[in-house]
Every structure is written in C-alpha cells, then in structure tokens.
C-alpha cells in the first residue's frame, strides 16, 4: 500500500505534472499540516514544528523548489498571528526566534528536497532511455538474425549454382580432353598416320561442338551476372513475334531433331511490337531448351497471338510437368523443381522472367505433374518506355 501511495505521488515528478498541479499539491499539504497544528495547539512548538516541516519536505520532494518555498512562505505567514497576536501586537522574542529558525530550516529542506526530486526525475529519464536502448538493441538483433538467415540461404543457393555450373562445364570438357589427347598421341606415334582427313575432320567437329557448348554455358553465366548487376540494356526494334519464333526454331533445328521434339507452330496471327530482338530471342530459346529437356521425345506447340492489345507467346511441351506448388518457385534464381539427374542450373526461367519484365511484360505457367507445361509470355506493344530493372544495390535478395 505504501508503494501504491508512492506511485501516485510519483506522478508529480513526471513531465505531465503541470506547474499548477505541483503548487496545488504543495500548498494543499501545507494547509493540511496547518489545520493539524490548529487542532493540537496553536504555537510552533516541538510537535507542530515537525509536522509542518514534514509537510514542507513532501512539498519539495514532489512539488519542487518553487512550490516548497511557497508552502514555506504560507506556513511562516500562518504562524505569525498564531505566535503572538500578530506582528502588530508585538512578537515575543522566543517565538520570533522559533519562527525564524523554522523558516530557515524549512527553506533548507525545500532546497534539499527539490534536489532529491530533480535527481529522481533524471534517474527516471535515464532509466527510460536505457530501456529504450535495450529494446532497440533487441529489435536490431532480431533484424540481424533474420538477415543472417537470408544471407545463408542466398549463399547456399549460390554455392549450389556454382556446383551445378561446374558440373555442366566438365561434361563438354571431358570429350574435348579425350579427343585432343587422342590426336596428340596419334601425331606423336606417327605424324603421317594420324588418320584420314575425314576421320580427323570428325574429331575436330566433336571438339568444336564442345567449345560451342561451353561458350553457351559461359554466356548463360554472363547473362546471370548482367541481370544481377542491373546492366541489362534494351535496344528496341520493330519486331514481328511470329517471324522471330520461326527464326529461333530454325536455328535450333538440330537439337530439336536430336531430342525428337516435333515443333508445331501456330503463327497465323501477326503480332508486331517494339522490342529488343536479341533479348526476346534468348527468352524463346530458353523456353524451347526447357521444353526439349523435360518433354524429350514429345511434340512442342508454339502459339503467337494478340490478346487485349498485348502480344502473347505460348510454348507447350508434353513432358514431366510441374506441380502447382512449384509454379511460383521455378521463376526464382537457382530454383529447380526437377530431380537432380536433369542437368541445368536453375537459371533459365529466372532469366526468362527478368528479361520479360525488362521488356515490360510478364510470364506465367500452366501445368500439372505428368501433364506437360505451357509457358505464356505476355508483352506490351512497346517496351521502349520501360525503365531498366534494378540491380543488386538496394535489394538485398538479389545478392
């Protein structure tokens, strides 16, 4: 109960306590003490001295210096008539002395008490500051921990990417190394019998193919790096989407034949737009490579059409399909939703998405496991006014 009482009074030490409240409190306490002394006796003898002094102390502790001094003045003034019938009646020396002593002590107590009050106020402020500092420290610790988790995940997926990239590069290197060593050895044995020109020509063709594969792979890596650093530049030209698709399909004739993927194109509608043809070609190629890899042996259907003022390109394969729960994830960097034995670095669809977004468009997928997949790219007529995509700076997630 004492603590409760203390807490109520402690309000007076807060900033919210107005000056008026403090004065009212102090004077009120002083008046209460005076009334008490009236009941007991009317002189400033021992008990009354203490009672009133206590009141002054409380005034200073809770009200502050000004109110305490005001209370002191009030009580001194009150005792004057009580002491002897007022100053006019002549003050008895002893009583006057006692009054003077009281006034002095009360003033001293006021000063001491108000110092204690100030100290309390400062202590309270310091305590509050410390509390706030601890809270903000905890909050930033929490944020830091979350950041560490994100960082670890980013590093993990980068490590996985590098490991897959290294694996992919070692494959063409294998044939390359064996072919080169084989030719060297044949030359060392007998330079005249290294083999018929036809045979050597075949060997060199294999070598060339590996170099092309590695170059493509490295370009993939460069694409990833360019996109990450926000350096992807777009040079818009007037392009007809169907014509572009036909060109790409023609260029990929051999790999498509090897994968036994017959391409059916529906480009009856013409879709014109202002787009960067090089980047758009890369998008089409990426989609076709995926279709060939995961829908090997099955036909691929490509459709170009105009929908609500936008150009749409759909690539459909009849392959292993993608579970709906993975539909969003596959467009993220380094994400794959297929068993490990399907090579690939998990960046193809990410490159597609980022490039399409840089062209001002969007890409979506419709698919179910075992039922093939349809990827649809939707483009505005003109991507000329699209700002370049942000790079690594400013978005931690893209590190």
């Amino acid at each position, binding site marked *: 109960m004492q603590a409760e009482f203390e807490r109520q009074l402690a309000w007076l030490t807060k900033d919210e306590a107005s000056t008026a409240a403090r004065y009212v409190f102090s004077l009120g306490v002083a008046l209460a003490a005076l009334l008490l002394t009236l009941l007991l006796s009317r002189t400033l003898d021992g008990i009354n001295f203490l009672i009133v002094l206590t009141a002054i102390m409380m005034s200073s502790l809770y009200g502050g210096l000004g109110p305490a001094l005001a209370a002191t003045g009030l009580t001194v003034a009150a005792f004057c008539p009580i002491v002897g019938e007022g100053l006019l009646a002549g003050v008895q020396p002893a009583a006057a002395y006692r009054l003077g002593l009281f006034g002095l002590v009360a003033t001293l107590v006021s000063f001491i008490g108000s110092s204690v009050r100030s100290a309390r106020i400062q202590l309270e402020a310091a305590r509050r500051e410390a509390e706030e500092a601890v809270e903000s420290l905890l909050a930033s610790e929490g944020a830091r921990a979350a950041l560490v988790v994100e960082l670890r995940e980013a590093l993990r997926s980068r490590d996985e990417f590098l490991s897959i990239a290294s694996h992919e590069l070692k494959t063409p290197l294998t044939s390359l190394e064996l072919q080169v*060593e084989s030719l060297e050895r044949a030359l060392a044995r007998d330079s005249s019998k290294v083999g018929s020109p036809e045979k050597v020509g075949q060997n060199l063709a294999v070598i060339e*193919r590996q170099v092309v594969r590695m170059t493509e792979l490295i370009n993939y890596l460069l694409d990833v790096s360019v996109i990450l650093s926000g350096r992807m530049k777009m040079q818009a030209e007037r392009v007809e989407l169907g014509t572009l698709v036909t060109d790409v399909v023609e260029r990929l004739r051999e790999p498509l034949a*090897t994968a036994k993927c017959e391409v059916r194109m529906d480009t009856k509608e013409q879709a014109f737009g202002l787009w960067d043809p090089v980047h758009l070609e890369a998008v089409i190629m990426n989609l076709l490579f995926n279709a060939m890899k995961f829908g090997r042996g099955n036909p691929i259907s490509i459709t170009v059409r105009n929908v609500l003022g936008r150009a749409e390109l759909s690539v459909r394969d009849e392959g292993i399909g993608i579970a709906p729960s993975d539909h969003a994830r596959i467009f993220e960097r380094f994400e794959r939703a297929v068993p490990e034995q399907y090579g690939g670095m998990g960046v193809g669809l990410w490159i597609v998405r980022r490039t399409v977004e840089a062209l001002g468009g969007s890409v979506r997928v419709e698919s179910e496991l075992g039922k093939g997949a349809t990827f649809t790219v939707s483009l505005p007529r003109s991507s000329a006014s699209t700002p370049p995509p942000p790079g690594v700076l400013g978005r931690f997630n893209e590190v």
Partner: protein
Amino acid sequence: MRAQSDYSKLVLVVDDDPDIRETVREILEEQGYRVDDAENGREALGRLRSGSTPDLILLDLSMPVMSGPEFCSERQKDPKLSRIPVVVVTATGSPEQKVAKLPINGLLRKPVGLDELLGTVERFCGCGQGIN
C-alpha cells in the same frame, strides 16, 4: 548371342552425353575393345538383360530417366548382373560421398585423361585384344 570366337573384351558405356559416348567408343575401339553404349540407366539394364555381358561398365551418375545410383540398386537385384565390375565416371564435385554406399569397383572424375581411362579399362579387362 555372341560367338565363342569373339575374344575381345566388351565395355558398356553408360552416359547421357552423346559426344562422350562417341569419343569413348572411338578410343576404346582403337585399342581393340568392343563397345556398347546406353544413354541412361534403363537402357543399360535393357542391354544387360538382353544377353549382353560386358567385362566392364563405365557409368555416369547424373542421367535422366534412370540415374547411375538407381541403375546400381536395380542391378544388385540380379546376381548375374551384380558380378560385372562397374567404374563410375562422373563430373560431380564430391563424388566420394555420392558413391560411398554404391557397390562399385572404381571411380574416375571428369574430365578424365586418356591414360587414366585406358589404364582403368585395362585393369579390369586386360588389354583390348583379349586372352589368346
């Protein structure tokens, strides 16, 4: 079924990369070995089950349809097949972990050198001309 006069050793090359299959075939045939190939684990099993008994299997790990490890566990079910030596040839970063539990007889890391490849095949098959 093979004739008795066929004394050359037979090597089965299992890899999803056609250029690797072609290159290894050329190199081994030049040394006198006979070569069969398959582009994934399932095809390889098909070859084995149809009567072909190679003296050595060169096995890639990551292949679509049926991977190297899957092939190994299928092979184990048949005692006749599980006797054939298998050497894994892989581009994986830390192959030791991947193959630790597999019943294989050797490990080669891609890109593999000519000497290493021929040396390994010789170790399991003797030299290409077979026993006289």
